[in-house]
């Protein structure tokens, strides 16, 4: 099917797919983080709004998870260097 498209259309399709795939990866991460951070932060029965503690826990959870990822990468790199 690809050979029926001209080069410009192929390029456009490729750019589109790359962008959609990147966005899909971000969306999947958001699902994973929401699930994980919900378990960590929302411990009681859900009420009509989040407490300020619950809200900040959710935001902190995301940031600290990403910090953890960076930490692990650096640790692995330093161990490899040794």
């Amino acid at each position, binding site marked *: 099917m690809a050979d029926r498209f001209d080069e410009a259309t192929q390029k456009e*399709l490729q750019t*589109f*797919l790359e962008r*959609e795939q990147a*966005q*899909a990866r*971000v*969306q999947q*991460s*958001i*699902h994973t*983080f*929401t*699930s994980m*951070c*919900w378990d960590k*932060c*929302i411990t009681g*029965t*859900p*009420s*009509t709004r*989040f407490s300020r503690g619950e*809200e900040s826990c*959710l*935001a902190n959870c*995301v*940031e600290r998870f*990403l910090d953890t990822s960076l930490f692990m990468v650096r640790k692995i790199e330093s161990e490899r260097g040794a």
Partner: protein
Amino acid sequence: MASIRNELALANAQELINKTNDKCFLKCVTKPSTALSSSEETCLSRCFDRYMEAFNIVSRTYATRLARERLEGQAQA
């Protein structure tokens, strides 16, 4: 292209519904009986709202963080 976008949006919505179902059943229906009680339904309704809110909070936090790291990456380059 539009149909691919639609499919991805649908998959996204599906995942959200599945997650909400799992989390809220866990929290609200602790002793399943022969029907959902009205207090269980109230709990499920609130839980649904809260999970959506959590999703949005996580979304915003993640997007802000990505933007910040992109800026820092550019500043270092």
